[in-house]
């Protein structure tokens, strides 16, 4: 094989990889079970094919657009939960916390007639305060997070009932808030944002290579980097192309096209939290505490503060989930954030590959896992089954999606890479 050997400072011999060697290496890692989010994505594709075959509407532009707002609440709560799970903790109250935050926004908007730019930040601050309380009880009092958040799960249900005056639904009519989950970006802006995203990604990748090369450190071969950029560009641009098609049910009456507003919101948080986890000291410390709390403590990391912070992030993301849920439903009720929302959110993170034992997981997991859950719900909705059968099929399909992942990792275990 053609490898060029360079030597860097410190006498470390470096084998400079080529495109071929890199692909080879990648294949070796895949065979060895280091799969990243491939299996979950594969599961997603399998699911989409199943539903696509069963119902032709599944592959329509309209349905594709539906997926974004349908998955938003679960995806947001799951993104926040990734942080909590990374520490090996759990937040059972995230669902109702999102309900409480949504209700606060709705009440400020309607009963108190405030503007959205007051109500939305208020909801977010509520989320932060909730997270701080939860984290404080867990970190400083040492009560297991399962118990703290079970108590909070009950407590927030009560607060929600009290806020809504004992179970009333509150309808909202603020245009800005309603648009969040229900409207689309203009076609031009859709393309603009997509291009900015792709170009931004390309610049970051190229800059990375350049700065490492300048230090004489090993870099990924340029071919691979370009392939990665191309892959992202294709996915983003194809999705944009589909979403900028006319998809109105009744095109005569009104035109519906453009990327749903929630899509860039999800993307922004995905990038933000991925950056925080991967590129900042804080993120590094979150992984460390989750991987080995004692080692982190010995390294001088303020474990308690990290612990509190993940609950803050968790509840903050839940508050955004709540805002979007209220926007989508045009109203808030005592069950907003209840039912299966919590289990689905934790499930989304876990399906995507986050471990419940801490130390392992990425924010993208939550998005992919949330997509799996949303596709199942969406597809099952098209099938029109009766309730009993619907539950059963949902369970089975969830299992199928998860087992794609499990089989892949199974191989990994066999090669010793667990």
């Amino acid at each position, binding site marked *: 094989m053609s490898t060029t050997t360079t030597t860097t400072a410190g006498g470390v011999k470096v084998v400079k990889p080529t495109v071929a060697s890199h692909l080879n290496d990648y294949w070796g890692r895949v065979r060895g079970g280091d799969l990243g989010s491939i299996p979950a994505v594969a599961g997603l594709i399998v699911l989409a094919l199943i539903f696509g075959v069963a*119902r032709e*509407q599944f592959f*329509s532009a*309209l*349905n594709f657009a*539906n997926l974004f707002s*349908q998955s938003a*609440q679960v995806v947001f709560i799951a993104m926040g939960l990734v942080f909590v799970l990374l520490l090996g903790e759990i937040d059972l109250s995230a669902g109702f916390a999102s309900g409480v935050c949504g209700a606060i926004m709705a009440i400020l908007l*309607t*009963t108190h*007639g405030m503007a959205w730019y007051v109500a939305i930040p208020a909801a977010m601050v509520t989320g932060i305060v909730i997270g701080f309380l939860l984290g404080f009880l867990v970190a400083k009092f040492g009560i297991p997070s399962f118990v703290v958040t079970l108590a909070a799960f009950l407590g927030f249900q009560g607060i929600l*009932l009290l806020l809504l*005056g*004992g*179970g*009333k*639904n*509150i*309808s909202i*009519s603020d245009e800005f808030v*309603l648009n969040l989950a*229900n*409207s689309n970006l203009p076609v031009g802006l859709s393309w603009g944002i997509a291009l900015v995203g792709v170009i931004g990604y390309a610049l970051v990748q190229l800059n990375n290579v350049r700065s490492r090369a300048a230090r004489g450190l090993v870099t990924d071969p340029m071919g691979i980097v370009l392939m990665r950029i191309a892959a992202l560009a294709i996915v983003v641009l194809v999705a944009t192309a589909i979403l900028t098609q006319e998809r*109105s*049910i*009744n095109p005569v*009456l*009104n035109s*519906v096209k453009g990327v749903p507003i929630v899509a860039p919101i999800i993307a922004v948080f995905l990038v933000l939290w991925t950056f925080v986890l991967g590129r900042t000291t804080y993120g590094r410390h979150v992984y460390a505490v989750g991987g080995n709390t004692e080692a982190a403590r010995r390294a001088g990391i303020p474990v308690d503060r990290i612990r509190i912070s993940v609950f803050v992030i968790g509840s903050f993301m839940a508050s955004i989930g709540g805002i979007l*849920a209220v926007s*989508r*439903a*045009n*109203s808030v*009720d*005592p*069950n*907003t954030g*209840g*039912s*299966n*929302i919590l289990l689905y959110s934790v499930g989304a993170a876990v399906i995507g590959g986050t471990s419940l034992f801490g130390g392992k997981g990425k924010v993208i997991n939550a998005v992919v896992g949330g997509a799996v859950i949303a596709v199942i*719900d*969406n597809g099952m*909705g*098209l099938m*029109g089954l*009766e*309730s*009993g059968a*619907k539950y059963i099929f949902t369970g089975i399909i969830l299992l199928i999606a998860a087992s794609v992942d499990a089989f892949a990792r199974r191989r990994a275990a066999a090669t010793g890479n667990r």
Partner: protein
Amino acid sequence: ACGDNSDNAGSAGTGSTAAATGKVGVILPDTKSSARWATADLKYLKEAFAAAGVQADIQNAQGDKTAFQTIADGMISSGVKVLMIVNLDDGTGKAVLDKAKRAGIATIDYDRLTPNGGADYYVSFDNVKVGELQGQGLVDCLTEKKATKPVVAELNGSPTDNNATLFKQGYDSVLDPKYQGGEYVKGPDQSVPDWDNAQAGTIFEQMLTQDKNIKGVLAANDGLGNAAIAVLKKNKLNGQVPVTGQDATVQGLQNILNGDQCMTVYKAIKKEADAASELAIAIVKGQKPTTATGTIKDPKSGKDVPSVLLTPVTITKANVKDVVADGFVTKEELCTGEFAAKCTEAGI
């Protein structure tokens, strides 16, 4: 709660004239199936008992059967004289009624009859009738819209709620002949777990994706109706596709004023609550109740249960004002902001 267990030996069951003080226990079912339990019933019952100077312990089981029984156990052991329940299901209902009877406590089935439960009295609206009104309401709206062969989607209540089954029985009795006669086309028909509004949104969105020609929506209550309306709004179809509801909630009435919802069913809960509390107060005071003039046949035991039966009312834009006049919702709640003008328009 003080001093009321001093006379717990007195049998208050069948009109013996024991002490005039005594407590009434009320167990409401949940807050999810309808907002009425927490907002309306609770308020009216409290007011009625307070007015009569009778102590009342009113609790909500939050849809949890286990909690339902635990609350009943607690009420029985704290010595209530009358136990009024809205059962969550036949079995637990019967278990609680039996236990109460063994303890010599008078029992009232409120809103839902417990088959074979042997309650002393029954006060209710007719749930099948509610469904019939919904079905008829939708038919009227579709007729008004001059829809031809409209596709009708049905968004049913919780699959685990027996009342949802009764409502469905009611509206299907109206709609099925239309489907069979070819007047209407049967569209998607799905149940919403736990009456969950968010899930209702997804379910309806998928119904609409599956069949873009949906021209009418039978939603089992106002919350589900609102979820459907949110999706219709997103597709700018609100107001063109009639949606039904139930419970005459503020939200439902506002949707009606907006023209997004075609009708709701108003159950004069105050009347129901007053009727029930009247019975209970009489028993506590040791009198023989006189208001339970009707009877209904227990379908299982075949016995006649003394009953107070009330009739539900269809509410459309034309008679929204009746609900306000009844005091069920206040003008302040209903006519906020943008609705002020519409309220005036509707004569409120």
